[in-house]
């Protein structure tokens, strides 16, 4: 279920670091809790954020969720496809529905992040 090539946060985001660029998305668990996504609000390219700052919102039929960046850095790319196809977040949360790419400020983060297996155990704890 959860790809092992990345790390996961307690806020149900995933991050994948390649060099100094980090891709951020929300997890399968998060999209399932939200239900059918109808709007995705993403930040502007060039903006900088501290770790755990809100970078956008995902709005579903039932609820709205803030997206927090697990890492500090500058936005270098946003997933424009989500503006016209927000439902991708439900269909492919770990792939085509990545949210933003950030240039990581400083070292790549590890603190407080989980492996796929740890995250799987974490969400099983949340839903029981």
């Amino acid at each position, binding site marked *: 279920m959860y790809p092992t090539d990345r790390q996961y946060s307690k806020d149900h985001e995933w991050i994948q670091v390649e060099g100094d660029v980090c891709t951020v998305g929300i997890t399968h668990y998060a999209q399932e809790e939200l*239900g*059918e996504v*109808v*709007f995705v*609000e993403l930040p502007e390219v060039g903006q900088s954020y501290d770790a755990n700052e809100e970078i956008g919102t995902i*709005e579903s*039929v*039932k609820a*709205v969720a803030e997206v927090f960046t697990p890492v500090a850095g500058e936005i270098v790319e946003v997933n424009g496809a989500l503006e016209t196809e927000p439902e991708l977040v439900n269909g492919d949360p770990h792939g085509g529905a990545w949210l933003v790419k950030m240039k990581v400020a400083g070292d790549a983060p590890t603190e407080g992040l989980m492996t796929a297996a740890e995250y799987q155990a974490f969400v099983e704890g949340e839903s029981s």
Partner: protein
Amino acid sequence: MRRTPLYECHLRAGARMVDFAGWELPVQYTGVIEEHRAVRERVGVFDVSHMGEFRVYGPGAEEFLQRNTPNNVVRLKKGRAHYSGLMTERGTYVDDLLIYRRTESEFLLVVNAANRARDLATLEERAGETVHVEDRSDDYALLAVQGPRAESVVAELTADPIADLRYYGFLEGELLGASALISRTGYTGEDGFELYVAAEQAEAIWEALLAAGATEGLVPAGLGARDTLRLEASMALYGHELDDQTTPLEAGLGWVVKLKKGDFIGREVLAAQKEQGLDKQLVGFEVVERGIAREGHEVLAGDQVVGTVTSGVWSPTLEKAIGMAYLPPALAGVGTEIEIRVRKRQLAARVVEMPFYRRGE
């Protein structure tokens, strides 16, 4: 929390259950949008057994209801139902409800689950010696079969002439050989039926509807779709558009209020309001920017807060965010530009005509 007789059926169908007015009910099975579209295009079945049913009968029953509600019960024919409300002295509603006339002197009232206790208390307090009020809610399960193919699905379970029923007509017949009240009513803006059956028959009828509907594309639908469907059809929901501080005239329900029928509780307030004009009025709006206005969000005109959103959803049919709000009449005109405060942002919105959706258009 209370459960309906269909609780196990919902779990088997994969429902996500939520608390609604103290009842554990399905909010969705596969997804709100999918269930919504199934009802608009084909047919869906809802468990609305949490609704309350009161039997009101006796030689004084007609006069009693005529006095307690704004619609004209004297004009309500046997085999017909109408939409009305239980009045307060202040011209507002204790609850909105349906009244079915079964005979000259016997009626069935269908009320909201959240208001069942105070409705009953109000009716019992006002009833004289010639009227009996019985809470029969626990005896009934209520299934709503809604959508353009509803008739052919329900017809599989009965030999009664349901095709002859007009909107808001009903008959007392049989479903799967057991007594049932079958009415051509609903809360979705589509054609459809509401089936009042004995609680112990509910599961068999639910399963038979799923089986009969399989070829028609029937799906079970939850409270999520019920809310988006009723909002597109601009139907009020008590606790949102209606409460005991709001008159039916303010809520756009003037067509229910029959001032000429004679005296009834709260009539004077409504007559005065009709003459002097309203302070607030229910309007429909659509959000122009990306985002969803939801219940409780403030409505602004210029930098003034002018109202509050009573209900707001993303409309699967219109594919945009819509909602209802109370606004001063000066701002209620179609096309009026408003803004809605959604968290840190203010979304541009505009007043539009209601209903948002009308079947056959």
